[in-house]
């Protein structure tokens, strides 16, 4: 019978905390960048200009159909050769996850935008709005409400995917845990704690998200 002993892990709690903080920083960076990239890609893909539409489509498809770990290695080991620059694990990871989640967000944005009835565009146009004004004032506010659940799901997916950066030695939660496990010879306890940390934080985010969703549903209305 295995004897559980968390004391060596808890004694080094600060070590894990550093990793957790780094995970949060990376997730937040990739998420905010990813939303911007996603919006730009979505607009580009919806555009009638071929020189915008086609490249955006290619970026989206490439990043959706290749494994994130391959993308990370490409940015970390490959890109420095092309650009002859110094690449840090954080920079490589931020770039990878920004564009990767941006590709997924773009499809969510696009689906949300095209789901808005044509009549909304027409009514906005009919009072003299430009394309951009329609988008900003009429289409996006409604689309965002519809997209919110899939956006949250994607964001949570992103937080989990960031564990891949441990492979390029970025000191995220998983990387720190691995170090700690080797130091304390207590992998079972260490990874149990790590799983718990993810479980608690992601459950917390989901809870906040579903409350926001309900709030959204109450404000204004949806005509089917």
């Amino acid at each position: 019978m295995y004897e559980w002993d968390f004391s060596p892990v808890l004694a080094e709690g600060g070590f894990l905390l550093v990793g957790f903080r780094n995970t949060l920083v990376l997730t937040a960076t990739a998420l905010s960048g990813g939303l911007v990239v996603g919006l730009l890609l979505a607009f580009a893909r919806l555009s009638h200009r071929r020189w915008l539409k086609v490249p955006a489509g290619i970026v989206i498809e490439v990043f959706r159909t290749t494994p994130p770990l391959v993308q990370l290695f490409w940015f970390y080991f490959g890109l420095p050769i092309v650009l002859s620059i110094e690449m840090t694990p954080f920079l490589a990871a931020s770039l990878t996850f920004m564009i990767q989640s941006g590709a997924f967000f773009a499809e969510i944005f696009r689906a949300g935008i095209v789901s808005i009835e044509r009549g909304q565009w027409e009514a906005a146009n009919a009072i003299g709005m430009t394309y951009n004004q329609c988008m900003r004032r009429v289409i996006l506010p409604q689309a965002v409400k519809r997209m919110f659940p899939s956006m949250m799901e994607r964001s949570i997916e992103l937080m989990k995917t960031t564990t891949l950066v441990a492979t390029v030695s970025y000191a995220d939660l998983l990387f720190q845990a691995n170090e700690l496990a080797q130091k304390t010879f207590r992998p079972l306890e260490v990874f149990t704690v790590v799983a718990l940390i993810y479980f608690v934080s992601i459950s917390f985010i989901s809870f906040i998200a579903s409350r926001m969703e309900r709030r959204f549903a109450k404000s204004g209305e949806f005509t089917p």
Partner: protein
Amino acid sequence: MSAPVLRLSGFGKQFGSLRVFSDVDLDVMPGDRIAILGASGSGKSTLLRCINVLETPSEGRLELDGELVGQPSRAGDMRFSERELCALRQRVGMVFQQFNLFPHMTVAGNVAEGLKTVRSVKSQKALERAVAELQRVGLADKADTYPSRLSGGQKQRVAIARALAMDPEILLFDEPTSALDPALVGEVLGVIEQLANEGRTMLLVTHEIGFAYHFATRILYLAEGGIYESGTPDEVLKNPKRPLTQQFLAEHRRFQF
């Protein structure tokens, strides 16, 4: 003699190989109220939507107050810049069959939106103006409600107020009562009648022939890809001269009592 506010000449629209109408010539004088009748699919909506260029006309010219809208392209059709379209649509308002209110804005927000976003009127001013417009359609008390709480008739009145807020020279109505319960048709027609009494220039597509008779200064009957018959309500509705118009009206009178 005043000049036409709106002039269509050689106006036409095709969808691919489908020619909806062609060679439409029409002068709309200030204060004209034109009711457009026709069988389903005769191109009434398309004609109206080409006038504010929600659909791009395939041929012909569109003039507002004697000024050509758009630039003729080498192929002969008209090209419209976004700026021209926005200017045109502020002068030619439209009310849709399905209302198309903005569901995420309050009633007053819907009416104020054009002023705020298109005309850059300050939010407070725009809302005051919106409430005044709502007063005209009898819905000032609904200013802070969301459209989902309104009946169809109320929604359509809000949509009319939204169009009016932009002070259009011409108002286009595309079957404004066709999506309504019969009991709610009256309140919307009442608002349109009131606008008629104010001397507004309007084009109305409708199946309410009785209303068209009392409301219109001129009737257009669309068929065979164009204006098939036109004239005063008495001419067209009481003494139609051409067979399709006669048939259409006979069809509509079938169950009258």
